[in-house]
């Protein structure tokens, strides 16, 4: 018997090995090497002096230009998360309860924004938000405005475009949790005289809180580190952490400072992940559900 378990353990380890090796070689080690650069001194022109220093982090927390970017990124992400929750919840509820044969079609359409990739999505938003784009053309035709209003290169534009994809990540976990709530609970509440609204507020909403928490943390993490959408919609004006990290490294060749910004992003993500996993395990929705 003991032999059997140890051979089983060996088989399991063998199955896991390829993924483990890949993750260590091409995820953990590269990330650690990059992040360790944040502790080196930058020599203008692209050089790195390998002496340990925390000057890059000090520069970040001292200069308003940089910590301002962090605050702006957090603020934009919070707005995105709250808007995604408000517009996503009804959709999650609908998808969890519908018995329509068209549910497959609804799911397909829901996942399209994620799968199409950020470039085409952001391009679509450029066409919508531009000066001769959909919104301005409509508003001018309807005589609400005379001159096009500026939507590109604004926080508003970035928030709208980010919400369009983040809302999908909000909907999926809430939908999973709602699906598991026994409809008989809601029926019982109604039999006891509660109306639909009261049933929703007192039964459904509290039971779906784990989904809301999971969806919000996922949404928050992904908004924080967004790159393509803020870059193409916000440009240089609306700096977000991801955009700034890339700019420091690709334009200024300042690897240490870019690495410091990346480290801050990664630390934030780890904290969010910690809460996410805690919530997930407590509610045991982990085993069978997506995100």
């Amino acid at each position: 018997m003991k032999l059997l378990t140890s051979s089983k353990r060996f088989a399991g380890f063998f199955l896991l090995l390829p993924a483990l090796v890949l993750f260590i070689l091409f995820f953990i080690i590269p990330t650690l090497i990059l992040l360790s650069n944040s502790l080196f001194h930058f020599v203008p022109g692209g050089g790195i002096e390998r002496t340990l220093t925390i000057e890059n982090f000090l520069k970040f927390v001292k200069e308003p230009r940089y910590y301002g970017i962090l605050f702006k990124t957090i603020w934009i992400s919070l707005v995105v998360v709250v808007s995604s929750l408000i517009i996503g919840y009804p959709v999650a509820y609908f998808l969890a309860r519908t018995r329509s044969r068209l549910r497959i079609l609804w799911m397909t359409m829901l996942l399209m924004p994620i799968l199409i990739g950020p470039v085409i999505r952001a391009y679509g938003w450029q066409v919508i938000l531009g000066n001769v784009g959909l919104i301005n053309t409509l508003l001018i035709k309807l005589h609400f405005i005379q001159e096009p209003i500026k939507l590109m290169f604004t926080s508003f534009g970035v928030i709208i475009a980010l919400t369009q994809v983040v809302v999908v990540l909000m909907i999926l976990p809430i939908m999973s949790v709602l699906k598991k709530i026994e409809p008989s609970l809601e029926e019982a509440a109604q039999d006891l005289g509660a109306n639909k609204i009261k049933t929703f507020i007192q039964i459904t909403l509290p039971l779906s809180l784990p989904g809301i928490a999971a969806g919000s943390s996922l949404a928050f993490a992904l908004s924080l580190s967004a790159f393509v959408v803020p870059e193409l919609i916000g440009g240089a004006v609306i700096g977000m952490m991801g955009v700034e990290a890339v700019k420091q490294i690709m334009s200024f060749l300042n690897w240490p400072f870019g690495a410091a910004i990346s480290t801050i992003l990664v630390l934030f993500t780890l904290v969010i992940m910690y809460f996410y996993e805690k919530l997930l395990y407590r509610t045991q929705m982990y085993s069978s559900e997506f995100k």
Partner: protein
Amino acid sequence: MTTDNFGKVFLGSTVALVYCFLLLPMAIVIIVSFTSTEYVVFPPKGLTLHWYGEALSLEQFLNSFKISLSVAALVSLLSTTIGTMASLALVRYPLPGKEALSIFFLSPLMFPSVVLGIALLHYINTLRIVPVLPALVLGHIIITIPFVIRTVSAVLYGFDRSLEEAAMDLGAGRVKTFFKITLPLIKPGMINGVLFSFLISFGDMNISLFLSGPLFKTLPVQIYSFINLSSVDPTIAAISSLIIVVESLLLGALFKLLGSREIW
């Protein structure tokens, strides 16, 4: 109108509005791609397929399409194989620290992929040995494996193990049982994994941007370069529309194929 009906109408119209919002950017790209003007404008003026011809005749798009296709094909096959093996290990086998391992393998879902992109660029610059194509494939495997593990594990958890036991009682060996019973049962999860890793690799930007060279660009990176050059060029709308249509058809076909078996 009763509150009940009111609720239904309210829910229905909210859902419809949100779906419009979700699909709007893609619909707009398709609509403006037919414009006969030299620049993108809404509403499009005239009606022409000219920009599609233009997009398809551009050497850069064609080359990048081939690159993206081969990367995505390799990624989807490797990710699904490695991810399925890992799912089997994580769901079925007694491993120490199983929960931590699961979190570890799903972590790329939340990890800032732009940081991973920069890290891989730095890594291959340091190593100086990995050519671009394998580096891209490896980077994409990392970001797509969590999707495979999610879907395959979901199927494995809802799996009736007595079927396998029955097969073994009837004299089938472990290997035969795996190929005749286990594999067909987890196939929906694997098909889902293949398509998702394919599409995510095909559309990825955060890794590809850093690992592409001037002569080796995936399709999204190529489109991105065109947007940076001139965002009003209608060929961008045309090539994007083609991608949108093909990907929706692929995804629709997948869900049709998997039918009522609900992974999502």
